[in-house]
């Protein structure tokens, strides 16, 4: 995207609250330029800059999601993972009524599949990755991925909960994080126990004369 169209996209973000993720918000962005145009952009110009039909709306949705993810980094104070995710959920609040349609737009972006969850999953994964990075997660090797996968699932569940019940979203997130830590601990212990069992069996089989 060129500088000018990226700038217009940024100017369109505050308009989402009142106009939703619409071509109209993109069209009105030129009125917020330092030297504003006299009229909003015509439809053909919105198409030329941002894409045809719903593609322009998807461009706006992606820009908003990127901006929200970028804002997560802006606060440089060290925070716990739960607080970071809560702050990210708070970013959704001004545009909450438009988010279901935004996610539906993303999910319907595939030319092949009628519904494609990949963009929504990528969004959750991006938030989880950013949150773990900010929280200085000490996960290594395989646990780096499992940690992010679990945070991603937790965030996605909390965000979906927020769409229907915004007031209880924080409490729901806390309960999920607590359950996740219990589940993680249980999984680690299960893995350790399984390792012991495997070593034991390996020893028994070796001592019975079978060569490994």
């Amino acid at each position: 995207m060129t500088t000018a169209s990226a700038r217009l996209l940024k100017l369109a973000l505050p308009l989402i609250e009142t106009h939703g993720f619409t071509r109209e918000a993109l069209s009105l962005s030129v009125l917020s330029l330092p030297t504003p145009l006299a009229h909003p952009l015509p439809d053909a110009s919105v198409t030329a800059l941002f894409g045809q039909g719903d593609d322009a709306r998807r461009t706006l949705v992606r820009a908003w999601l990127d901006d929200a993810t970028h804002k997560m980094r802006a606060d440089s104070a060290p925070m716990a993972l739960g607080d970071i995710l809560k702050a990210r959920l708070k970013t959704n609040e001004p545009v909450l009524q438009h988010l279901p349609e935004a996610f539906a737009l993303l999910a319907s972006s595939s030319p092949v599949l009628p519904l494609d969850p990949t963009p929504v999953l990528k969004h959750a994964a991006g938030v989880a990755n950013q949150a773990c990075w900010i929280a200085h997660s000490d996960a290594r090797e395989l646990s780096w991925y499992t940690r992010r996968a679990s945070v991603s699932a937790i965030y996605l569940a909390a965000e979906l909960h927020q769409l229907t019940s915004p007031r209880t979203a924080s409490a729901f997130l806390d309960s999920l994080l607590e359950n996740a830590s219990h589940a993680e601990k249980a999984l680690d212990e299960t893995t350790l126990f399984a390792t012991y069992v495997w070593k034991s069996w390996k020893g028994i089989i070796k001592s019975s004369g079978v060569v490994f």
Partner: protein
Amino acid sequence: MQQAARLLRIPRKLSRPTYRLIHNHPSLGPSNSSGRTASFGFKTVPEESKESLVKGVFDSVASKYDLMNDASSLGVHRLWKDSLVDKLKPGRKGPLRCIDVAGGTGDIALRILDHARENYADRETTVEIVDINAQMLKEGFTRFKKTMYHNTPQVSFHEANAQELPPSQFKDDSYDLYTITFGIRNCTSIPAVLSEAYRVLKPGATFACLEFSKVNNPLLSKLYDQYSFTVIPLLGTILAGDRDSYQYLVESIRKFPSQPEFAQMIRDAGFSTGGDFDGGAWTDLWGGIASIHTGVKV
């Protein structure tokens, strides 16, 4: 009615000579005084001669232009032009004042007016067809006589140079949509055309160009080259009796900048575009055989 008739008159009958191409005529002034050259197909010619050479080509092909387009592209050019107009959706948000440059035979103008009328019941959108070549404009005028737009303010014909649109008639910041279809590659200076387009468009208005472009797929590119250099000039000989003109047309396609290069030229003229990818600043048609480039004056 009389005013409408004056606007629709065939350009050579216009009383004002200022719009006629009088410079670069072979009999006027020294040729190649600047030493600058331009490409005329695969040949390199003095810059001053290119306009008259291109004029000669289109004087020759004008009467069979539509037939040759259909024969050489197997009718596909109609689909491309439909794609362009469908992308622009003229009339969707109200009537537009459009200028179609190098639009002599009126293909795009007719599609714009039909699209606005049939989809949005818009009978206020206007198109001013501009072409440097009187013969091509004559063909367009004849075509429009068969339509409901003849003798209405919705269409008018003007002979003018895309690189130097007379400011007295084509004022600054006055058009909502500028289109140029399969014409910009014939101009001597593409930046000059783009600069004029920027000048006459209103702030926020759209520039759209449909032009032959670079095919990126190597297999398709080979097949396309074979077809272009073998079949099209042959068709020119058979259908129009003019192999050389069609040879030029095929060669001129190969000399045109690639999609990213042309997109950058559009930005250099001051337009804003989408990103440098297919679907952004340009949209490839049929693998890049043709491409729609768009820009917005912001």
